[in-house]
């Protein structure tokens, strides 16, 4: 009963490598924020770094890299719906004549 095909056991080295990478990325994002990049670029870099960190956590800490593809699809699906919710709401809020409809 001890077949564990499906239960990937990560090595300590793998986990620590990912952990250190996450720390480095954290320092990087704080540093980049402190040097004050011009307007859309600061948001773009911050979000790119955040997405990279998120990918590392999801793939290696949460084990999605070795897990059944369906679980990854669940995560991606959730993000897709979140993006739909935000973008369609923005279709309203960004295109209003005046921001809050006055009474």
């Amino acid at each position: 009963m001890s077949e564990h095909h499906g239960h990937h056991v990560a090595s300590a080295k793998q986990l620590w490598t990912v952990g250190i990478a996450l720390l480095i990325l954290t320092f990087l994002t704080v540093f980049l924020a402190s040097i004050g990049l011009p307007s859309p670029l600061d948001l773009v870099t911050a979000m790119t770094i955040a997405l990279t960190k998120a990918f590392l956590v999801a793939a290696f800490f949460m084990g999605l890299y070795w897990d059944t593809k369906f679980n990854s699809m669940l995560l991606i699906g959730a993000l897709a719906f979140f993006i739909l919710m935000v973008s369609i709401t923005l279709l309203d809020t960004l295109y209003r004549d005046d921001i809050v409809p006055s009474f």
Partner: protein
Amino acid sequence: MANHSATHPKHVQHHFVDSNQQFESAKLGMWVFLVNEILFFGGLFCAYIVFRAWYPELFTQAALELNTFWGAVNTVVLIGSSLTVAMAIRSAQNNQKRGLEINLLITIFLACVFLVIKYFEYEHKLHLGIAPGSFWNPTEEIAAVLDHPKANIFFGIYYMMTGVHGLHVIVGIGLMVWLYLRARKGHFNSEYYTPVEITGLYWHLVDLIWIFLFPLLYLIE
């Protein structure tokens, strides 16, 4: 395959065929729950995006009141706790009872550090009158800097996002204390560590949310 296997270990519930089906089902169930959590926080992120798109200068101004250093420390703390909870799962998979217990304890400790830092952050702000909603009452020097008419909205969003996240941290601590107590009693081994695995997934999500909260709230310059 659909037949009961030769042994039906104690930890396998009667409606499952074997241990593996139970484990995979638990994992799937937890991932579905995480989808649900993502959409829950998603509403808050949506409110953030809508208001930031409308009042970008407010966000730049208000973020000055947030302490980037302690926010970064909290990020490091949570990443550390994600690492230790992953190590805890690894210990369980390798039948290392002691390793499991120690890693769980460190995770709990780091989570508590996060909450303590959060507490001091909140206390500092409330002291300056930067409070949510009807308690908004900034001191004169703050009001001089934070002169945007919608400043209370930013902090409403800030308190809601970090507050709901903080509640999830507290729940996580509770879950991990429960896990620790069970680990001490020897409930977990390489054959059965499902609760550790799925609690770990939950905890990683808490970390994930913070990974996005941190730059969005603290790193706006």
